[in-house]
């Protein structure tokens, strides 16, 4: 009955007043950020990243994770009431949530998404709890060659599956890997790309990179574009929230289906909450006996995707915590937070840091409960938040970024690094190059290089070594399949696209 001892340990950790406070802070901030269009979850996490340096690692992770799943709850609010997704994973919720709000059923939609989010997340947590320790147990036996292959698969999948152009995604992964080589080479001790600058010896700061690429460039793109919404605060009162019996009857099957879809796509590399939500919507649309209701305020089209994206939020932690391989840039930042605290992510994490792992998992339950409490009675507050003009928010966000970057080492150099990455981020936006694969490449870079070099030493320079190992060969074959499939899908999409204007 190991599992109960572990869960009890986790519950004890998560319920300590210190961790509970940061869990609350995380989900609270997450909800705010999710509600407000114009600050994404990555920008938010990177903004608050420096604060976590001053916390214990468990509390730091609990807070960052709280922001991550909190935004998914908050994101649906803006989707339903304004028809603007507050976060990308809530984009699908606009399709049927906004029509519901137009019909005066916004309150019902808000309540049902919150309940669906809670249901989906709960199922996701169960999946996470049951699979992670098992995977970690087997993962201890794998060597550098397997690690290298798995990371390659993760990077390639993240670069090609979700973004418009597979080639651009791959180019950004390579650029991220290249940026990761800046600093001291861990094997030979040589300085690479430091140009004699002492502050670059430890490498580029992940905080500065994430803040610049996601925070600063997002602000540049949003100023004078985001206008406060025209929302009717009455749509979010208790009386307006009561679902009909028909709503409930229609909702519970999509909730479970959504949670299943979300749990699967959350754990896969490269896919994530956004794709899970889209898939769930497509499935509900197809399974429905009345597909013509979709797009006109069908409750199934809101409940399914919201359950799916929250389940995916939780299961995204499976590869991150059990293998140390993040499937998405947010998870890469979580790993970054761990590494900054001197904790090596990998299969040993669960056995070496049981308090951290189980505490984090149990904090998900508590965080989701807190979100349920925060979202239902306080919905009026979040709705009013939608009316705050962006011109009052972005100087505050910038200030947070500047002080946060400076506070890490008390060095103005880091502030200028943020500036540099902000410029790069804006240029990438103009050229429509995706920033997420770059971050993923940057975080995994040192690990990929170390494992690759170690594997090549073991192989005595023979590349066939990788193909002679069945597991490695399978993973590499999968990687090649992902690349071929995404290029083929891209070509087919282009052939179908008569105007010749792709991904606009």
């Amino acid at each position, binding site marked *: 009955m190991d599992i109960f001892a572990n869960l009890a340990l986790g519950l004890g950790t998560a319920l300590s007043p210190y961790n509970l406070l940061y869990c609350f802070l995380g989900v609270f901030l997450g909800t705010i950020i999710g509600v407000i269009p114009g600050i994404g979850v990555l920008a938010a996490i990177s903004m608050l990243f420096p604060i976590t340096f001053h916390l214990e690692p468990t509390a730091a992770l609990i807070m960052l994770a709280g922001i991550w799943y909190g935004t998914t709850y908050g994101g649906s609010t803006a989707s339903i009431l304004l028809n603007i997704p507050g976060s990308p994973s809530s984009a699908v919720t606009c399709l049927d949530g906004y029509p519901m709000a137009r019909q005066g059923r916004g309150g019902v939609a808000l309540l049902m998404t919150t309940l669906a989010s809670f249901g989906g997340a709960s199922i996701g947590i169960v999946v996470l709890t049951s699979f992670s320790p098992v995977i970690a147990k087997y993962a201890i036996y794998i060597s550098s060659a397997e690690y290298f292959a798995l990371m390659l698969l993760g990077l390639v999948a993240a670069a090609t599956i979700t973004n418009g152009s597979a080639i651009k995604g791959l180019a950004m992964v390579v650029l991220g890997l290249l940026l990761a080589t800046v600093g001291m080479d861990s094997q030979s001790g040589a300085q690479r790309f430091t140009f004699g600058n002492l502050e670059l010896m430890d490498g580029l700061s992940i905080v500065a990179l994430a803040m610049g690429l996601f925070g600063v460039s997002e602000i540049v793109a949003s100023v004078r574009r985001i206008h406060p919404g025209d929302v009717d605060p009455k749509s979010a009162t208790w009386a307006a929230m009561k679902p009909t019996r028909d709503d409930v009857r229609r909702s519970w099957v999509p909730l479970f289906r959504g949670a299943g879809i979300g749990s699967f796509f959350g754990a896969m590399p490269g896919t994530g909450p956004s794709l899970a939500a889209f898939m769930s919507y497509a499935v509900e649309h197809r399974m429905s006996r009345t597909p013509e209701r979709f797009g006109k305020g069908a409750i199934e089209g809101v409940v399914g995707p919201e359950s799916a994206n929250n389940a995916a939020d939780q299961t995204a932690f499976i590869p991150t915590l059990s293998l140390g391989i993040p499937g998405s840039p947010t998870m890469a930042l979580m790993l970054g937070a761990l590494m900054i605290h001197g904790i090596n992510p990998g299969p040993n994490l669960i056995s070496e840091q049981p308090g951290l792992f189980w505490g984090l998992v149990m904090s998900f339950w508590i965080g989701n409960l807190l979100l349920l409490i925060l979202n239902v009675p306080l919905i009026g507050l979040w709705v009013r938040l939608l009316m705050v003009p962006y011109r009052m928010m972005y*100087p505050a966000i*910038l200030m947070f*970024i500047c002080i946060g970057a400076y506070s890490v080492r008390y060095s103005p150099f880091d502030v200028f690094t943020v500036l540099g990455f902000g410029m790069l981020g804006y240029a990438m936006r103009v050229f429509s190059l995706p920033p997420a694969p770059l971050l993923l490449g940057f975080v995994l870079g040192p690990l990929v290089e170390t494992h690759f070099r170690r594997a090549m030493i073991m192989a005595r320079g023979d590349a066939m070594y990788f193909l002679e190992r069945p597991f490695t060969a399978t993973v590499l074959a999968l990687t090649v399949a992902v690349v071929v499939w995404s290029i083929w899908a891209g070509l087919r999409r282009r052939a179908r696209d008569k105007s010749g204007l792709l991904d606009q």
Partner: protein
Amino acid sequence: MVTKRDYRDMVAGVLLLLLGLAAAWYASENYRIGTVTRMGAGMVPLALGIMLAGLGLVVMVSGWFRKGIMPEVRVLTPICIFGSIAVFGLMIQPFGLLPAVLASTTVASLAEKEFRPLRILLSGLVLCAAAWGIFVFGIGLSIPLLSWKP
């Protein structure tokens, strides 16, 4: 604006190509490459540089064969936002936290395209209070509020 070729991708491709070549050249000039079995510090950057250049070439060539849309490039907004960060970086050590926050929020507010001194000053002061409350009082960072080391 629709263009005959995707100039955005072509320029992006050229930039990636040049960046990749520069990195590969710099790595091969300055660091030990080593052999495949015992790699030197330069091997991985060299390989990555070549890969980046290759992908850049593909992006460039494929842009030639398709129509594109000219991206909108903002001018004033990036200047104000980037300027605000630069001002913060330049002022934080010589003058301290409060002047740096006040100056950087002022520069950032100019991106709004309407100049309202009173409103800017007011929001700057509010942010100064927030900066002190959150970072100095709350988290306990030891950043001097005011200093004079120009």
